[in-house]
């Protein structure tokens, strides 16, 4: 408990650099990641993360030390190259993008591992820190890392702000951007460089494998809450920053816990919760909406069938048993009874003994559905020249969807016809 408080109040200077470092990295990666998410290039970040390894090792072999400048330049070059190679493979051969990504990712990582193990076995004493690029070292961030992280974060954010309009366009509609004369290639290059930069710094915090998560998971979560790009970016940054903070909290309170995986765990949990509970786009609200729609269609169909049975017997307020109703049209009995109960509650139907009949309101509603059905059939057969025996299925769906405005336009267009193509009366 005490250590939690110590962490939150930032009383230990070591905590400050770990927290600020993690938050900077996760937030700025999330901002850049939003664009790669929207461009449907979520896995590209994963490939870059693996491909920086040979660059890091090569820089070490060539320079003989762990000077971060060389390391970052090396990482940047191979990370960048990997994206170009993926592009060339996809464009010049019949291999698809997913194969190209998996191929470049695994082979470049293999080359990196081969170099890394060769360096380790060579007995060079100064190699000991290279491992941290594999797994990240968020819990061991120090002042010097912090300066670099801040510089990178500022550059990333500045670029996104400066080129916001252009990046937005190429993320959503590249061909339009091309038409209005934007330098699409250069902009894609810019976005690629931003992604590589975010990855090169980010893997020092969370490691090779989990880098993809801090790039795209915040964006994926944010996408479920908003349709507005600016809000989405801000939300992604907040989610990223929070998980960076929470991940360092966990590993501070329980020192055996690795920071990187906990950052990813937190951000993934936020994303999973968003997938389920987000309003409108979330799985739960979608399923609810679907269930609601199904229920209303079933109710409308019931009213329609009761109306049609009455129409046949020349008395639309006749009462019918459930057996007769299901003989007219098959309704799954499991859904039929609750639907009738709902109709009863809305007083659209009456129940007398075991017979059901339409109320005045229900009569109106059933009549409207039947009218829409027949109007649509007539419309299809007169205007689209579809044979009368092919129009029923289509009308069966559209009758639940047509709005009152469309209804009046249909009536006017067809000039209030009396009969549908099956020679049945259209009720008004």
């Amino acid at each position, binding site marked *: 408990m005490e250590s939690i408080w110590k962490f939150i109040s930032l009383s230990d200077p070591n905590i400050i650099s770990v927290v600020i470092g993690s938050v900077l990295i996760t937030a700025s990666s999330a901002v850049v990641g939003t664009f790669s998410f929207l461009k449907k290039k979520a896995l590209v970040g994963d490939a870059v993360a693996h491909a920086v390894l040979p660059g890091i090792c090569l820089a070490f072999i060539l320079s003989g030390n762990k000077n971060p400048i060389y390391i970052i330049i090396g990482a940047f070059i191979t990370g960048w190259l990997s994206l170009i190679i993926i592009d060339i493979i996809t464009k010049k051969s019949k291999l698809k993008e*997913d194969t190209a990504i998996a191929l470049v990712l695994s082979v470049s990582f293999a080359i990196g591992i*081969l170099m890394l193990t060769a360096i380790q076995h060579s007995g060079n004493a100064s190699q000991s820190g290279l491992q941290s690029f594999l797994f990240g070292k968020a819990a061991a961030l120090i002042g010097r890392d912090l300066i670099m992280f801040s510089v990178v974060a500022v550059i990333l954010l500045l670029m996104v702000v400066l080129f916001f309009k252009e990046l937005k366009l190429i993320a959503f509609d590249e061909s339009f951007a091309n038409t209005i004369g934007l330098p699409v290639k250069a902009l894609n290059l810019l976005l690629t460089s931003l992604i590589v930069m975010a990855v090169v710094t980010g893997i020092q915090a969370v490691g090779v494998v989990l880098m993809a998560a801090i790039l795209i998971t915040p964006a994926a979560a944010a996408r479920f809450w908003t349709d507005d790009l600016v809000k989405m970016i801000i939300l992604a940054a907040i989610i990223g920053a929070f998980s960076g903070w929470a991940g360092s909290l966990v590993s501070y309170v329980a020192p055996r*816990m690795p920071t*990187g995986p906990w950052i990813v765990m937190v951000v993934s949990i936020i994303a999973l919760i968003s997938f389920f509970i987000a309003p409108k786009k979330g799985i739960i609200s979608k*399923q609810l909406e679907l269930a609601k729609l199904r229920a209303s269609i079933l109710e409308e169909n019931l009213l329609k069938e009761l109306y049609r049975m009455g129409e046949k017997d020349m008395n639309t307020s006749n009462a019918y048993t459930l057996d007769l109703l299901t003989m007219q049209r098959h309704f799954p009995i499991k859904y039929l009874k609750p639907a009738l109960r709902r109709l009863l509650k809305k007083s659209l139907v009456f129940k007398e003994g075991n017979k059901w009949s339409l109320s005045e309101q229900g009569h109106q509603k059933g009549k409207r559905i039947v009218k829409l059905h027949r109007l649509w059939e007539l419309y299809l057969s007169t205007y689209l020249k579809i044979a009368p025996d092919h129009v029923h299925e289509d009308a069966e769906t559209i009758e639940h969807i047509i709005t009152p405005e469309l209804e009046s336009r249909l009536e006017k267009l067809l000039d209030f016809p009396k009969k549908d193509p099956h020679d049945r009366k259209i009720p008004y």
Partner: protein
Amino acid sequence: MDDIYIILVASLFSISCGLLGSFLILRRMAMVGDAISHAVLPGIVIAFLISGSRDSFEMIIGAALLGLITSFLIEFFHKKANLQTDAAIGVTFTWLFALGIILISVFAGQVDLDQECVLYGEIAYVPLDLWITDAGLNMGPKALYVSAFILAAVIIFLSFGYRYLHITTFDSAFAASIGISIGLWHYLLMGMVSMTTVAAFDSVGAILVVALFVVPAATSYLLTRKLKSMLLMTVLLSFLNSFLGYYLASTINGSISGAIASTSGVFFLLAFLFSPIDGIWIKAIKRNFDKSKNTSKTKFNKIFKE
């Protein structure tokens, strides 16, 4: 003798992976394979806790289960939440991999797995882990039996399922119309992929196993247009990679699995450039040839037909 054991185990694993990988790339599911190979980690850790050893039946079951859960989750997020496939893959596998690493840290004392082994494995230890019968008879490395068993399972699966996999891969609409369950074969393939991943995990790790799945298969995909010859060529390449990779690794004293995967990358590069049917070098020559033919044709048309 150790050399032969290592090369043999590496070849057997890469042949199993390559055969399954051929179907993965034809089905455009290479990244799903990648995701599964990472996401089986929590299954491995949990199975380790239950059974207390690395090579056990529980391990295979645990991992196969996690593999199926992974491919189910990817599908679920894609279909039910309308999340684009690449993001669904990225979110799912990083989450499960993070869970696996956290579990390793929580049970660090009880689970004999470390992070390096997870990433790239250590096939050099294969000859040290021997199977010694109760009578004290030395039967050779355990991994040899595991890899042979997996290859046998893959071959049996493919020889029974070849026709179904073939048809669901190339013409899923037709397969569905004649009553072949696409979902069943999808999940069977995913189950086999996870099983193979887990078996090869100790030797090659989570990321390099992806290279075994994808690279030889992609190379032979560029060299032939027939599924059967693609599979045969994959087998050949997998063996060649293991053989040459082993000697590369011992020359520069580096990771063997890393060297095998790097070798396969070299073969891919060669096929990409010089494949007689799809190499970009050949294509460029053909294009030049066509161009010169076309220009003389148009000149001819211009002069004589107009």
